[in-house]
């Protein structure tokens, strides 16, 4: 891969945000996979999401992972962000809960309050 220059750094940043906007992804699902999440069972949750996505035939859903989200005692956790709306954090997930959340939130567009902890972003300086 080509070595980057400083101008490249800035371009990657722009392109990335542009790509999010234009990439046509309506929904982004992040499964939190730090050691805490994995120990609590985040991999089966990830599998459920991938299976449900395949079954649903939706083309505008992005799936990604991140590290520990901070509230380790309530893992496995996943965050669902729909373009234009604040992200919703779901906690203490099981495969069944994830299936329901996929159907109601990802496909249906309505968050599931009983399984959600919070909506919004954290304070980063």
């Amino acid at each position, binding site marked *: 891969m080509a070595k*980057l220059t400083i101008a490249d750094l800035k371009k990657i940043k722009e392109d*990335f945000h542009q790509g999010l906007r234009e990439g046509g992804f309506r929904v982004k699902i992040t499964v939190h996979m730090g050691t805490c999440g994995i120990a609590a069972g985040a991999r089966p949750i990830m599998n459920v999401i991938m299976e449900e996505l395949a079954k649903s035939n939706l083309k505008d859903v992005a799936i990604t992972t991140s*590290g*520990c989200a*901070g*509230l*380790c*005692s309530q893992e496995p956790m996943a965050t669902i962000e729909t373009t234009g709306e604040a992200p919703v954090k779901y906690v203490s997930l099981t495969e069944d809960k994830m299936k329901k959340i996929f159907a109601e939130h990802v496909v249906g567009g309505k*968050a599931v309050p009983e399984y959600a902890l919070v909506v919004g972003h*954290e304070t980063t300086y």
Partner: protein
Amino acid sequence: MICAGTGCVANGSLKVKDALETELIKRNLQNEVKIVLTGCNGFCAKGPVMVVYPEDIFYQLVRPEDVPFLVEEHFIKGRPVEKFLYTPPAAKNTIPVMNEIPFFKHQVLRALRNRSLIDAEKIEEYIARDGYLAAAKALTEMTPEQIVSTVKSSGLRGRGGAGFLTGLKWELCARVTGDIKYILCNGDEGDPGAFMDRSVMEADPHSVLEGMIIAAKGINAHYGYIYVRAEYPLAVHRLQLAIDQAMDRGLLGKDILGTGFDLDIEIYQGAGAFVCGEETALMASIEGKRGMPRAKPPFPAVKGLWMRPSVLNNVETFANVPPIILNGAEWFSSLGTEKSKGTKVFALSGALNNIGLVEVPMGTPLKTIIFEIGGGIKNNRKFKAVQMGGPSGGCIPHTLIDTPVDFENINKTGAIMGSGGMVVMDETTCMPAMAKFFLEFTEDESCGKCIPCRIGNKTLLTILQRITNGEGREGDIELLLELSQQIKDTSLCGLGQTSPNPVLTTIKYFRDEYEAHIKERRCPARVCTPLVKFVVDKDKCKKCGQCFKACPTGALVWEKGQVAYIDPEKCTKCKSCIKACRFWSID
């Protein structure tokens, strides 16, 4: 009452007022309904805001076009309009906003700025959040002296626990002449209960690399090692991936970003020794020797790894560096206390409702961290003490719950803030047993090089074992205190210099528990099994039967309305009954 604070006015509250005036006149209600403009209600995000008295109904997000309907329904028909009402977070249909719930509200993420937002295995995601811009700035717009002085004036102190001024450490090394210098990262994180560094290494490995690049430029080092404990395989994997991707893009290795600066970083895995978190032992380990510390001076800044000038910093310390370069020293020191600037990541564990990782400004009171962020004690138990700083730290009792958390204030209590581990204990914890637990750890981890630590810790442990076994002797407490102080004063390295702290602090704040163990052969928390009699106190027993339900062997005899009784023939001393009893009726 219509809010006329700046927020609501910006959202059009004055137009709402006008609409309301007009509508009231239309309906001939202008003498019955009085409009008052008030100052900011506080709930700016839901403006325009309107409060109607005497019912004390709070309307939010009111628009001028809603006014006729509102007047019709509320003022004429007397029915408050549901859709403008504020639904409090407790209501089933609404999800609380992140910054309204205590766990998130009190946190300010700096070291954890990318938490939950990036895929650690994709360098583009790190770059997209300003990644490597600080390194670029440091390499192209700043001299090494400027880098060092910025970090020094920020007030950043080592986050590994010792709290040495980071910029000063860099300055001392920068001054030493030498072609070969090393920048080292301490990812050993050996404290039981600490997992802050693991989170940074797994979730944001590039933040560590970027911090190391900036430090390397400051001290003029071109080689670096990240010492990661082997018990963190995911961290090792993600760090290695991060290094590979950065090398690939020219963000590490030769001629970084075309600036001519070279830095090679390698990972070195630990082999399970707590003492290798100590800087000279860590360096010995990288050199292929048994991890044992050595005397200082010479300090590593002058003669470190392979006797070359070296700087070792903690993972969290490095993670703090890029934002300092991008935003400036004053930005960093705008949070925190007089001598402890910035934020600190704490790992909450133990008897709390909310277990996890939190980053708060230095100076946040313990009370806030434990009761608001931590959500209070689990199972409605009472808070007894919090162990801070792992086995090098000490316990802080409930009487000191208002202590602001920073280096100096925690040191004053006899504990240390340490690397950030906070193990919360409730009334079911036995403090001498807790001290014994930590000594079991440090005695095992002692490298054995110096007598005070090798033999001293072993002796402390032996005395604690006797006490918790019901064989404590008169004079044991004084012996523990004297021995502890000697070990602290004469040990070669930080392990021995701090291992007696749990003993010293538990005696200081919970001496009565030690005395009960020694003089009365009694464990007030009912933890030390040899000291538990397994007899129900008939006067205290509430006849609730919870112990009966918990007993797995049928030794617990109880009938409704009766006092419980434990049959010593069948009792296996498993303590299930004691754990179930909320009235401390079983001795």
